[in-house]
């Protein structure tokens, strides 16, 4: 593919990000730092000189590092188990572990509070309370990001040829050494990508920290939200947005620099042939350990959630969802389900289209520097405050020709912004691993560059594409920070509805929030299960 074709492919993603990301963010930063048409950059040093702001920065970084390390430690064994071991109910379980990732952060925070807080399960049983320590935040972050590692790393792991490791064993390597020398380097790009995502999510963590952090712990994102919507100090919020932006930019540059060269052409095989029934006490113990971890860390909080939604007799909270006279909304809370699904489908379509175009352009090994730089830029939306993006949409996209305030497309556009990086990150390692000679074989047989992509790349990356679409769908469904600003009052999404219910006093509202969260959880689980089914049905056949 020539450079011209590559740039043509990139035009769509570039325009999308310029219009719906760079422009709104720039607009809101300008709103905060420009007084009477004059930039006041002096604000930046003023704000950064405050010791409480510096403490926020320090805490944000440390908790993100600790959360990332803990998530990798706990989830990597699970990535192995899902990739290489065969056990009944694996596909269902794979969907189940993804559910936490898409739950609204406020719901997760509440669920963890019910588990480890005052009067929570641990308190009842052993008198243990974690809600005043940083451990509650760290565990909630692991709960959230477990699936990121399992899916990103496990997805590639399941397609690595096990015979490579066997070859190393025959050359005298112990099974651990074989794993370390052969499999680990092959997995490194996926592990790095997963670690990067986890770090970004925890660095910009919002709902969890707001609920579990109390007055002691606050991240940048929480501080931005507080400055924007509680203190109305737009200039401090703008400075903090810039700081977060810069920090994320540095992380992405370092990441791009360290990871790029490690992606190499891998021998990918059909995932269905690499998994085996567990053999030996070691593998059984590992499987048992992973299942126990999932039960305690992922299922227990979800179970607490469901249990609380059922606290009223005769499904009282669920029945209350259908009534329009609750006063919380212009419509019955139940309508949020339909809204959320429609928005998420549209957002997924946009994210997959934009992400696939970008991935196709970026996949070539001979990609120029300009193109490779774009690779890192695509990740920025994950690191920029969703609050900023949502608020930016409102103040930037309100004039013709881009007056989208009244358009339903505004919400999917904001949600797709967060979905695109997933699509690119998931597809790029697989696309880059496709043997270039397969493409050449197709070209010599008369396939144009476009048909080569359709006939060779697409079938090989369909798996990755479906995983990417699932992720995009899930994050769209659970997106809260931006949507809360731009969803119209008469068409709330599920997370927005849950947050509004939680914000109102009374057992009925709390119970309804739990019921709606349970519904959201079930919707996600069903969507993910359908995806798993699609995936296994269609491997190996075009």
């Amino acid at each position, binding site marked *: 593919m020539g450079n011209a074709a590559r740039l043509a492919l990139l035009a769509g993603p570039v325009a999308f990000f310029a219009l719906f990301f760079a422009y709104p963010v720039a607009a809101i930063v300008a709103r905060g730092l420009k007084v009477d048409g004059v930039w006041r950059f002096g604000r930046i040093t003023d704000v950064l000189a405050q010791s409480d702001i510096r403490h926020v920065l320090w805490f944000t970084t440390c908790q993100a590092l600790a959360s990332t390390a803990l998530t990798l430690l706990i989830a990597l064994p699970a990535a192995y188990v899902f990739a290489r071991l065969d056990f009944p109910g694996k596909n269902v379980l794979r969907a189940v572990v993804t559910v936490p990732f898409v739950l609204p952060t406020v719901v997760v925070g509440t669920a963890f509070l019910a588990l480890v807080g005052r009067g929570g399960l641990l308190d009842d049983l052993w008198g243990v309370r974690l809600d005043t320590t940083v451990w509650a935040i760290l565990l909630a972050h692991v709960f959230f990001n477990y699936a990121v590692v399992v899916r990103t790393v496990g997805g590639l792991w399941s397609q690595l040829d096990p015979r490579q490791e066997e070859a190393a064993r025959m050359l005298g390597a112990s099974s651990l050494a074989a794993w370390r020398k052969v499999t680990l380097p092959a997995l490194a790009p996926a592990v790095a990508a997963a670690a990067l995502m986890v770090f970004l999510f925890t660095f910009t963590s919002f709902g969890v920290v707001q609920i579990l952090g109390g007055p002691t712990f606050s991240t940048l994102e929480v501080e931005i939200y507080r400055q924007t919507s509680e203190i109305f100090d737009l200039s401090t919020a703008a400075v903090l947005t810039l700081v977060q932006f810069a920090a994320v930019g540095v992380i992405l540059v370092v990441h791009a620099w360290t990871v790029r060269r490690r992606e190499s052409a891998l021998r990918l095989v*059909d995932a269905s042939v690499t998994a085996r029934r567990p053999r030996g006490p070691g593998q059984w113990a590992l499987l048992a350990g992973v299942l126990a971890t999932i039960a305690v860390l992922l299922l227990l909080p979800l179970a607490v959630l469901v249990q609380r939604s059922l606290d009223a007799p005769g499904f009282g909270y669920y029945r209350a969802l259908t009534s329009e006279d609750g006063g919380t909304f212009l419509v019955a809370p139940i309508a949020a389900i339909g809204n959320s699904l429609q928005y998420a489908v549209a957002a997924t379509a946009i994210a997959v289209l934009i992400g696939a175009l970008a991935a196709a352009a970026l996949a070539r090994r001979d990609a120029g520097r300009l193109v490779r730089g774009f690779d890192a830029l695509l990740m920025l939306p994950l690191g920029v405050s969703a609050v900023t993006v949502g608020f930016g949409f409102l103040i930037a996209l309100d004039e013709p020709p881009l007056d989208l305030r009244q358009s339903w497309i505004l919400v999917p556009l904001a949600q797709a912004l967060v979905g695109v990086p997933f699509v690119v990150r998931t597809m790029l390692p697989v696309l880059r691993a496709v*043997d270039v*000679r*397969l493409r*050449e*074989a*197709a*070209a*010599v*047989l*008369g*396939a*144009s*560059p476009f*048909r*080569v992509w359709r*006939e*060779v790349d697409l*079938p*090989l990356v369909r798996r990755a594409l479906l995983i990417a679409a699932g992720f995009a769908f899930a994050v769209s469904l659970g997106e809260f920070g931006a949507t809360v600003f731009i969803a119209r009052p008469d068409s709330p999404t599920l997370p927005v509805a849950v947050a509004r219910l939680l914000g109102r006093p009374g057992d009925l509202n709390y119970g309804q929030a739990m019921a709606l969260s349970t519904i959201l959880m079930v919707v996600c689980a069903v969507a993910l299960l359908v995806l798993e089914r699609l995936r296994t049905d269609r491997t*190996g*056949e*075009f």
Partner: protein
Amino acid sequence: MLLSLQGATVRFGGRAVLDAVDLAVAEHEIVCVLGPSGSGKSTLLRAVAGLQPLDAGRVALDGRDQAGVPAHRRGVGLMFQDHQLFPQRDVGGNVAFGLRMRGADKKEQGVEVRELLELVGLPGAARRAVAGLSGGEQQRVALARALAPRPRLLMLDEPLGQLDRSLRERLVVELRELFGRLGTTVLAVTHDQGEAFALADRVVVMRDGRIAQSGTPLEVWQRPVDEFVARFLGFDNVVPATVAGAAAVTPWGKLPVPEDAPQGTRSLLVRPAGVRLVAAAEGLRCTVTARTFKGTHVAVHLRPEDGGPRLEAACALRAAPEVGQETGVEFDSTEIVVLG
């Protein structure tokens, strides 16, 4: 000429992998490029296929310059060294690929695939998965796939490289027969001289990106053009020589050469068949260091007692001396070639 290369040059970094190569292939001709690994033969094929841009020179097909013509519009076929079958398609899907790219309808594809699979000796294999094929079967599928779009030029990169010996020898005969029947123009590359000689109408020997020699298998076999070609063909009895008239002075003594041999300081090749073992008292005195059974004869390795370069002799099965035995050596001028 169907294919002609003029001054074709490809550089990787500063190194010329293909160095001003001139080559022509006529219609229905089978040309085999022979050379050690790293000699640039695969690059030659990739340049013709349009997968590797030239740094200088030109590639012409049917007299038309192919500069700027992308690989998928050149109408040439390439069979890859490790076949590169599409893993997600079955055998039929692989063979039909080129036909689909040409826009052939389903019915036509079905007929062609069936015929081609019969032609390559895999009748009824269309629904099989490529992962389950043996090496030989994969090779046949790759061949059928390359033949399906009826390329004006079929290129084969180490076509039989990964197969076991008996299969290779059988397939090479089948291939030659098949290409002859179909009238296919073939440009193949291999590092195996046996394969090249069995398959080709004409052999081109490459060295370091350049063409060292070109000719019919017989010509190349009988008259290697220089020491490199001679050694590459497996001849080890090569020594420096000073030729004057019908005699050459060598470390093995004074050897008879054909009368029309080039004169002066040269390299000289003695084919093993031209090394005659005689009684120990006659000719060059040697000790037998090793014997290798070659089926039709025994290769006897000899160390001259005066310290000259070692020699290899081809010897009838029963007449072969034991290791350690002493023997005399005489040379037969008809098996001696003065190299360029």
